[in-house]
């Protein structure tokens, strides 16, 4: 591409966007809204994933040791349990500690004052890396000689996994729908631009313009719309996110929801918005201009 052609394309692209001011404004506005909705869903999904990951990390199961094992023998099982691939950590709890923990959770401890520690089994508190592999891990731990019983909240783990999968699917569907909507918006803006310049395009073709020469100014126009939308959406997303963070911080004493700061996500959001904006902008303009190039 020759240098003065590049300047010509850029100039014509800006000229095209400027000469359809209202349509350009409307396209940028609507597409920015699409990006904002898309971004909000994605950020919600990321935050839910983050919080679920934290909750899942706390999800542990107990592996009870055979009664006949004393504490010293029981502790030898720890190496076998940690050797299992999905096990993140493994903590030994002696009979005394187990009793103390149990009694400590009760309001009236006097009832258990005479209960000997030997009434309970020694146990391991085991945390896993991937909760989706929990059942397989339980089977492996249970197969270790000396482990007699497992106590795991499989229903809770399944609930977490289902919730995460549903959330990812919803986010993906929303992203796809909104990309398609944005594509049609850009296509319409470019269609308006091309139909008002149909005569110019016909003249260009008749005097020997190559298809790329005709196409480039519209591609630039699509880029401008895509980039403009991304910038507007980025700023709006920042504002919406900050409002959400402030709203959640009112209930911060509950400490149930941990929101990732926007600064940590800003570069990812910017790249995603620009990427989607530019992709949709260029695709919309290229597909729309195609039928005008058949002359």
């Amino acid at each position, binding site marked *: 591409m*020759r240098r*003065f*052609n590049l300047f*010509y394309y850029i100039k014509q692209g800006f000229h095209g966007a400027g000469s359809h001011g209202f349509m350009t404004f409307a396209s940028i506005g609507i597409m920015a809204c699409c990006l904002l909705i898309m971004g909000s869903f994605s950020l919600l999904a990321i935050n839910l994933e983050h919080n679920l990951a934290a909750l899942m990390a706390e999800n542990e199961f107990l592996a009870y040791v055979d009664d006949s094992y004393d504490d010293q023998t029981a502790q030898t099982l720890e190496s076998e349990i940690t050797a299992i691939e999905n096990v993140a950590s493994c903590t030994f709890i002696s009979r005394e500690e187990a009793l103390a923990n149990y009694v400590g959770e009760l309001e009236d401890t006097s009832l258990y004052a005479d209960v000997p520690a030997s009434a309970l089994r020694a146990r391991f508190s085991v945390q896993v890396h991937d909760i989706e592999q929990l059942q397989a891990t339980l089977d492996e731990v249970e197969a270790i000689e000396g482990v007699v019983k497992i106590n795991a909240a499989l229903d809770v783990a399944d609930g977490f996994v289902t919730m995460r999968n549903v959330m990812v699917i919803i986010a993906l569907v929303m992203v796809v729908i909104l990309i398609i909507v944005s594509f049609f918006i850009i296509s319409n803006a470019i269609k308006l631009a091309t139909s008002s310049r149909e*005569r*110019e395009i*016909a*003249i*260009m*073709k*008749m*005097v*020997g*313009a*190559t*298809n790329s*020469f005709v196409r480039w100014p519209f591609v630039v126009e699509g880029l401008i719309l895509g980039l403009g939308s991304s910038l507007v959406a980025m700023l709006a997303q920042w504002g919406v996110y900050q409002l959400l963070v402030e709203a959640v911080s009112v209930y911060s004493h509950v400490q149930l929801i941990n929101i990732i700061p926007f600064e940590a996500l800003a570069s990812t959001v910017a790249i995603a918005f620009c990427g989607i904006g530019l992709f949709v902008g260029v695709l919309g303009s290229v597909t729309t201009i195609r039928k005008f190039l058949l*002359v």
Partner: protein
Amino acid sequence: MIQFTNVKKTYDSNLTEALHDVSFVIEDGEFVFLVGPSGSGKSTILKLITAEERITSGGILVGDFDLGKLKKRKVPYLRRTLGIVFQDFRLIENRTVRGNLEFVMRVVNTSNKVIKERIPYVLDLVGLSDKADCYPNELSGGEQQRVAIARALVNNPSTIIADEPTGNLDPERSYELMCLLEKINQLGTTILIVTHERDLVNCFNKRVITIDNGYVTSDMENGLYDYETI
């Protein structure tokens, strides 16, 4: 050179056979009128020359381009050898006369230096040097058509094809326009004019190809426009 050899053209849309075994040769530097009644096939001939339409059978050579084998991506390069003038001028309304000429030069990647040199020369040739900064709606019909001719000339084509160039002009302006095209022809450019203007054709005493119902019915040097008697 434009050479038609046994050209047949059938439109796929309605299976109308628009041209039947049309053959003729227009040598470089010739001035030719293509005449005939409406629907005779004149426009089809022009569309075939500019590769807007493809032949059904036969062969067409336009300069070095064999249109039967011409690849789609080569069509722009064929069109750069042709200058086309339309009955309705087809100027871009929001550009000045200079802007209209500059526009078509930019399309074929002409450098700024050449653009600056070429536009005043062509405007002088068509007698519109003082109208360079006017917009098309500030010009008369005759002037607008001269701008269209200037636009067709500006990329220095070997052939100018004019489709009813005087259709929107009064007889006096039409005569002036033909004189201008004759002057351009004398500078070496091949001219092919499709027209209905009987008096004008008869007045210029040039080669006349008559087409009727898709057939070439006469092809005469220094001919007359008289297809009704054929």
